[in-house]
């Protein structure tokens, strides 16, 4: 039987506001434990929360970026459960009346384009962090648990999609697009590996053509975009095997294990949790009037979908345009280079190819490198003028990225300037033809297979600086 996967994704985003969701403590990573805390975020007796206005605006931006409606009246609730890194033993969250509802994003994959509904975007506070010392690293198992409340109360947004995704590839594209939107909005640093953006998926399978949903499984701990795809591919296979064996999928939460590439059922600590939500009496409802909404909306930057349209119009392939639209730093350098007169497709390919690979290898972000739009445009002009070969251009790009200088300087110092004028090349060509008279004779007798060999010999004798096109032209002239 053929099965259709039904996937929905919950995305948690930590906001980069200056202060926490309900108190004035700074939001920063890496501070010594329990230094960014106060009576409010420690849940001390008597302390009361106050909503961070900027966090609400950031949440509105995310909602607007995902084409949501902003609720004129939304409410915080208490989500009750006991956990030692949650100071109040309830989390202030939004429940039945979230800030943003009913949005969508469009995704494009090799499988085509699709519109994915956004059910809601709501605000909540993050928990602290537990470190378990001793056996197993599990809570309760070790002899000691250390608690750090620096993260407690950091503004957290939850973006919930409709179950509109039908493949692991789509799920990844969705995650990439949401990340791109949030990144362009500048409201989070969207670092998956640091946990400032986290994805959980709900996935079920149903016979193709069926209209009801199968039993869903929640998959957690997908710490990269790639693992979103891998985990769901695995889970689709696993559930299909279960169903094909005539068994039933168990409704549970499963943990993705990056190393062995499998999911495993988590210890069922959350079995049938009743969170006993009720409206948070310490906060008043958030009222967003049209003036506030439109003020925030008018301050929104260009979104990935809009940028992608522009890039497509400049002749870029869909995937290249998509990548540049989501990675706003790459997009900015691309636009600067094109603005300086460079060919769009050439610089786009460099950015999504060599530049991205180099940044990944060096674990750097584009702004940390020495590359800018002007340098890319200069490089592209050198290639266009025949001063650099395509191969040498990639070499020069590496030098520019690592700060060796402008493209011309790097090409000069690495001795990569291409020789294409006949007067300079003819002696070298003649020397090669003389030394390889057998091959030259074969060429003259019409055996064009030796041409490549002869060009290669000229390239070698010139240290790779000869322009292959010019060399070919001269050899053809000599061969008559």
């Amino acid at each position, binding site marked *: 039987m053929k099965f259709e996967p039904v996937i929905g994704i919950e995305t948690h985003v930590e906001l980069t506001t200056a202060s926490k969701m309900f108190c004035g403590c700074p939001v920063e990573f890496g501070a010594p434990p329990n230094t960014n805390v106060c009576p409010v975020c*420690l849940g001390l007796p008597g302390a009361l929360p106050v909503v961070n206005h900027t966090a609400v605006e950031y949440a509105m931006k995310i909602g607007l970026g995902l084409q949501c409606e902003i609720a004129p009246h939304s409410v915080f609730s208490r989500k*009750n459960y006991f956990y*030692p890194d949650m100071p109040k033993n309830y989390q202030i969250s939004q429940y039945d009346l979230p800030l943003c509802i009913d949005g969508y994003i469009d995704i494009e994959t090799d499988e085509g384009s699709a519109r994915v509904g956004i059910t809601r975007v709501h605000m909540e506070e993050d928990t602290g962090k537990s470190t378990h010392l001793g056996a197993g690293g599990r809570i309760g198992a070790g002899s000691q648990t250390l608690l750090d409340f620096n993260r407690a109360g950091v503004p957290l947004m939850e973006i919930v999609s409709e179950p509109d995704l039908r493949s692991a590839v789509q799920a990844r594209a969705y995650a990439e697009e949401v990340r791109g939107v949030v990144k362009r909005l500048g409201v989070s640093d969207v670092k998956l590996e640091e946990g400032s953006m986290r994805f959980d998926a709900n996935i079920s399978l149903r016979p193709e053509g069926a209209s009801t949903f199968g039993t869903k499984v929640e998959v957690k701990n997908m710490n990269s975009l790639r693992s979103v795809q891998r985990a769901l591919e695995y889970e689709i296979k696993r559930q299909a095997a279960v169903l094909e064996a005539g068994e039933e999928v168990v409704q549970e939460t499963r943990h993705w294990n990056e190393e062995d590439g499998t999911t495993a059922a988590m210890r069922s600590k959350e079995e049938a949790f009743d969170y006993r939500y009720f409206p948070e009496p310490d906060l008043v409802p958030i009222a967003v009037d049209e003036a506030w909404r439109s003020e925030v909306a008018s301050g929104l930057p260009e979104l990935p979908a809009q940028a992608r349209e522009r890039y497509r119009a400049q002749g870029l392939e869909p995937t290249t345009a998509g990548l540049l639209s989501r990675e706003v730093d790459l997009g900015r350098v691309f636009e600067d280079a094109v603005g300086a007169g460079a060919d769009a497709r050439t610089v786009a390919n460099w950015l999504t190819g060599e530049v991205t690979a180099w940044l990944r290898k060096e674990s750097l972000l584009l702004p940390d490198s020495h590359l800018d739009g002007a340098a890319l445009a200069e490089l592209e002009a050198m290639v266009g003028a025949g001063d650099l070969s395509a191969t040498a251009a990639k070499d020069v790009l590496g030098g520019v990225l690592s700060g060796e200088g402008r493209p011309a300087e790097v090409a000069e110092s690495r001795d990569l300037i291409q020789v294409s004028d006949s007067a300079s090349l003819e002696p070298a060509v003649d020397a090669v033809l003389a030394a390889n008279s057998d091959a030259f004779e074969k060429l003259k007798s019409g055996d064009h297979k030796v041409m490549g060999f002869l060009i290669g010999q000229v390239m070698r004798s010139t240290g790779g600086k000869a322009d292959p096109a010019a060399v070919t032209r001269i050899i053809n002239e000599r061969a008559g």
Partner: protein
Amino acid sequence: MTDLADLTLSEATSGLQGGEMTAVELLEAVHRRATMTEAQLHAYLNIDRPGAARAAVAADSALGKGAAVSKLTGIPVALKDNLVTRGLETTCSSKILAGYLPPYDATVVGRLREAGSVIVGKTNLDEFAMGSSTENSAYGTSRNPWNPERVPGGSSGGSAAAVAVGSALAALGSDTGGSIRQPASLCGIVGMKPTYGLVSRYGLIAFASSLDQIGPLTRTVTDSVTVLEALAGYDPADSTSHPGAVPDFRAGLERGVAGLRIGVVSELSGEGIDPQVQAAVARMVTSLEGEGAKVTEVSLPSFEYALSAYYLIAPAECSANLARFDGVRYGLRRDGDTVEEMMANTRAEGFGPEVTRRILLGTYALSAGYYDAFYGQAQRVRTLILNDFDSAYGQVDVLVSPTSPTTAFEVGARATDPLAMYMSDVCTIPSNLSGHPGISVPVGLDDAGLPIGFQVMAPALGEEVLFQVAAEVERIAGFSERPALANSRADI
């Protein structure tokens, strides 16, 4: 000569500002009164002698320099022990917070300190303010200064007893279902619950956040105004704090009640009300009419459901508010083999039976499948009560009733019967559900020599007319009796 501990707050303010006495002398008198009465009353959990002495010296210095002083400069004030005080043990009368030293002052505590008042100490209460007799304290029952066999009421019983006996000139309490007004009534003093949001709750250890409100306990209506003036006003640290202008509490004090429309709540008279209480209230209503008020009987049918709604909403909120007491970060900890077990052991040992009962009630009321039938329904009743109040205030300026259905009951009389205890607050709870102000003013004694309180209620931010009527009630009653214990003079 008068013992300084018997002065009202206003008398003491005049004395201090007129140079007839010093804040240190006043504090000493209050300390002597406490020394003589505490063994019987147990109004205080903790008397902060060094802190108070420093504050009194500072007050004298300000008074001596002719610096800007307030009516509260040098006035000894007691604090209910659910208000956090920086570096001063705050327990809520619970074992679970034994030894807890807060790192900050509640907003109201800060405002009292800024006003120059002298914090005498922390007063006893029913554990986490849950109760109406102060018998639910983990640190012993407070007693009524009129008769130590009787309860002082609760939950602000310690504050009421201290003010009544003179071991403080004023005190702060908190009122979730009557916890200021009912003990004030039982102890023969003035107890006032302001409009919800008028006084910041920041630093009040929450019982039921949507109902809790801090207010003054004083000997007179004017003193109540004076303390409330220092407390009231917007606090950005409390999101439910009222951002607008504070009413003029003092404006109506001398105005009388001529032309005012006074409504007698029919649901809070007759059945269930002690006949002597009923008679005292009726006499006062007649007198008010004699002073020119237009009196009508007003029915608020939803009051019938107020107690039931209250005992769903308050426990529901408390079940979340008290979740933080888990032994992880502060207070009592009882170890266990797992974190969950440690939390369970800590809470089982740390909370008394009434607190445990309400947490269980509230947890149940919020449970999936029950939420709508219990919590949801209670919130709808709350809306009905608000509607009833609104339509009543369309016809009258204030509503009046007894504060408590009975005078002070004997220690132990209701301790084993939670429902009987819950009935103690039947007259006061509606104002908490509506968020409206209410005040209890003593109007006389019953045959057993126990005080009777008269309640005045007003619409939201109607404190001006509330105090206007309360002042007239006070004037008519001319209540000047003092509890027996207050007369135990040092020289006797």
